[in-house]
């Protein structure tokens, strides 16, 4: 069996980058360690080019366990561009903190290596390896601020819950293998389709796998680790966890639900739909009461995960058109979410830099202290809330349309919850904007000096979310090319 090296070229490139970064850190001294960031960035760009070259092709290797198609390429591009953005917003944070730069970048790259494998995985084993590759470096990264108790707490909580969730998933996977005799996702689907009278235990194992991913995407009631972990981790790591790690969870969840368990959509779809409603409602209602910007964004990201779960709720077995549309809307939402949330964390990092400010009150008068950062943050917040003309509006639009298009009572109910939550969420996003612009800054609050790289990264993200808000077709022309559920 020959290996299709072109198909795994991005993974190889990212692996080499990670190793080079680790070695470079060994040999560089003092301020020289800052060089690892540019090295990682160059490697990321090379990987992006290699991934883009795969667009339009369908390749399959390792006996069909690893597939590169439009769906995988769109996902990989999203992860890699997010990686680029996180490298940019986190540069100064680590360069000035002078702690574990080499380790951080190495772990970050390895974690993203797992992510870009995820959308290509068409086998439970590969999926499991990918999810572990994403998670294990993340456990360490969460605890990088070693002397900070909160950081250690974050790491421990994340580790225990992460291991638990993976164990649950793995348990489910092993039982599914026992029932179906295969680990291939399409193979499982074929067996399930021919099983007319499923055993309750089989259905239970499906739900175990889904619950495992539920922890990963921080769906209520599996979300309780997220706020503490986000709040305690170093901020660039929080951005990575809130965006990329969550997106990886969604990539895995999409693969198991829409490919492997597709024939039993009538069982998992309502369950995930209910989870979606709980997730967005509880996430948003809790976010209303937060006083700390990181915790606010943490709960907001739980709420956002709820919107992204909505399209799962309308899936129907055998309805390829509808399912494809559901996947597209999740994908679009993930892309939009990555842009606006990394951007928002970029601003949080900039504000945090002078004196560790992260309470909402520290944002008072940000409009006077740094108009660019305040404008950008306002844009990101409005986008997260779903206001026009930002990309977040279209994200909600596609989710909403998908659930209406299902033309079922449950679909309409989900649509109504999306609408109600959008209005609730707007309230706390607006409040932050209000504090930034309409409160006087604290006495002696310093002007922000985010530095050139962070400032330009945030500006670019802001412009991207605006341009995509005006011309969402730029993304949909790619995301509508996917055919994962076409059968």
């Amino acid at each position, binding site marked *: 069996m020959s290996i299709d090296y072109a198909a795994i070229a991005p993974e190889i490139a990212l692996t080499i980058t990670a190793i080079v970064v680790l070695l470079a850190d060994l040999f560089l001294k003092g301020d020289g360690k800052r060089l690892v960031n540019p090295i990682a960035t160059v490697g990321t760009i090379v990987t992006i080019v290699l991934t883009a070259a795969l667009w339009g092709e369908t390749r399959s290797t390792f006996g069909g366990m690893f597939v590169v198609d439009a769906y995988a390429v769109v996902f990989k591009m999203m992860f890699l561009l997010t990686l680029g953005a996180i490298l940019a917003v986190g540069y100064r944070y680590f360069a000035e903190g002078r702690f574990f730069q080499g380790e951080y970048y190495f772990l970050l790259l390895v974690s993203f290596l797992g992510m870009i494998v995820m959308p290509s995985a068409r086998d439970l084993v590969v999926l499991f390896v990918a999810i572990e590759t994403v998670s294990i470096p993340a456990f360490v990264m969460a605890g990088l601020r070693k002397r900070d108790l909160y950081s250690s707490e974050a790491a421990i909580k994340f580790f225990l819950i992460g291991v638990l969730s993976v164990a649950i998933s793995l348990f489910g996977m092993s039982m599914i293998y026992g029932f179906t005799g295969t680990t291939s996702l399409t193979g499982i689907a074929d067996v399930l389709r021919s099983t007319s009278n499923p055993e309750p235990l089989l259905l239970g194992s499906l739900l175990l796998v889904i619950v495992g991913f539920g922890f990963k995407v921080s769906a209520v009631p599996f979300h309780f680790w997220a706020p503490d972990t986000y709040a305690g981790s170093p901020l660039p790591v929080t951005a990575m966890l809130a965006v990329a790690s969550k997106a990886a969870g969604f990539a895995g969840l999409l693969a198991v639900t829409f490919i492997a368990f597709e024939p039993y959509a009538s069982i998992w779809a309502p369950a995930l739909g209910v989870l979606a409603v709980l997730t967005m409602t509880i996430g948003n209602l809790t976010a209303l009461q937060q006083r700390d910007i990181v915790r606010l964004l943490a709960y907001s990201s739980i709420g956002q995960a709820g919107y992204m779960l909505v399209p799962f709720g309308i899936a129907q077995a055998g309805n390829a058109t509808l399912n494809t549309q559901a996947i597209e809307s999740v994908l679009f939402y993930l892309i939009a979410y990555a842009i606006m949330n990394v951007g928002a964390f970029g601003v949080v990092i900039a504000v945090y830099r002078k004196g560790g400010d992260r309470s909402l009150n520290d944002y008072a008068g940000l*409009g006077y202290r740094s*108009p660019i950062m305040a*404008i950008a943050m306002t844009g990101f917040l*409005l986008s997260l809330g779903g*206001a*026009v*003309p930002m990309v977040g*509006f279209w994200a909600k639009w596609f989710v*909403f*349309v998908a659930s*209406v*298009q299902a033309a079922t009572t449950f679909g309409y109910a989900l*649509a109504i919850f999306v*609408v109600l939550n*959008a*209005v609730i969420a*707007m*309230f706390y996003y*607006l*409040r932050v904007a*209000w504090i930034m*612009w*309409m409160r006087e800054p604290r006495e002696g609050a310093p002007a922000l000096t985010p530095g050139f790289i962070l400032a330009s990264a945030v500006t670019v993200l802001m412009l991207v979310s605006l341009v995509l808000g005006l*011309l*969402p*077709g730029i993304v*949909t*022309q790619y995301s*509508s090319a996917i055919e994962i559920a076409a059968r």
Partner: protein
Amino acid sequence: MISNDAGWAIALAVFLPALGAIVLSLMPSHKDTEARWTAVLFSGAALLVATGILAGFDFGASDQLQFETNVAWIDAISARYHTGIDGISMPLFYLTFLLTFLCAIYTTKHLPDPGKPKAFLALMLLLETGMAGTFIAFDLVLFFIFWELVLVPMYFMIGMWGGPRREYASVKFFLYTLFGSVFMLVAFLAVYFQSGGQTWDIMELSAMGIGSRTFQIWAFLGIFLGFAIKVPMWPFHTWLPDAHTEAPTVGSVLLAGILLKMGTYGFIRIGLPILPEGAEAFAPILGVLGVIGIIYGSLCCLAQTHVKRLIAFSSVGHMGFVMLGIAALNERGIQAALYGNIAHGVVTGLLFFLAGSLHERYHTLEIDEIGGGMLVKIPKYGVLFTYTAVASLGLPGLAGFWGEFTAMWAAIFPAENLEANYGGLYLALVIGAGIGTLLTAGYFLWLLQRVNLGRPAPQWADKRLDDVMAIEWVSWLPLAFIILLMGVYPRIIFGVQDAAVARLVTFLN
């Protein structure tokens, strides 16, 4: 003069202010005066382009879309960038540019705390793009984008430059309107899917006749919530007095002058032609709520002690007349509604300008604290205030009269089906509206009596108060002139709309 197939002209007029907003935000913040004149420049240039469009407009063919652009925009959902202008859009479109330009001029002199003309004017120009875009969008998605675009700038205008309760007022404005527009969006989607999921084009959908009567009623309900909150109709009006009272002068002027009209325009442009059966089912409700608004608004005005709040409630009443015109569902009624839109925009816009300047002078808008004698103390201002208030109460010969009179006239003989089923109700509505005109006259005259007549209160007697300043003359006289022109020659608006409204009414049958 621009030839009327030049679609780019509309895009230029609509997006020039947005460009101005970008230019302003890039200017250094200490350039105070320069920022103010940049805004005048951009809104002036946009007004110039709009004037060119007006000059190139073929008034003989006002039922046709002119200056049309129709290009692909978002293929995935088959939304198109379709803009154009016809007789229904033209007056509102032009009023948008005129009012914003006057506001920019006014701001060269007056700007409430905390100053910051750069941010204020950038928001105002962004608002202009949203408002103008709403009136020329002929694709439901595009319409919705422009419609929503006005929310954020207005939110910040009220929230940053507003009065003491600005936080409450701005959030209430934002969430209330957002809530309504979400339902509107749901209705748009329902229409889109019901029509086969091919087009969002307002013109095509109007010609289509979509769905069953039941579907149309449900879809109209969604559209109704969105537009009724914006108008605002009783009982959805409660955000308006708060927003108006707290908003800075320019915010109030644009809110009353243009933003409210987006609601009635939406009813006429989208609700009526696309969902005629739904509109027919809802017409009596619109009429009843409109007349309740007229009477309720007037009664509230009688109880107000704050000039701006009084004008805000008078808006509720005036918009009630507009809704009564729409509820008649006949050509005359829609003409009246559109005319009332413009008249109210000009008159109430000017009233809010005047109220703003009143605050500049007296630093209060409580009627008791001002305490009378304005005609003695600041005679020119007093005369102008009287003139506008009298126009607002509907004196024949000034702008306010024709909209209200025609609306009542139209409602006596509403559309055929309505007359057959609800003839008595409509007659009662007209009587109610008639009582409303009396109350309106009553509270405006009482207001004039309290602030204009008599002797100046002792605390003001020896204070030096400026009469109307040069910059105020410049920004107010055009409006005062239009009020008179519309009063003595109403055809200037009716004539433009004639053919377009006639065509629209054909969709209703």
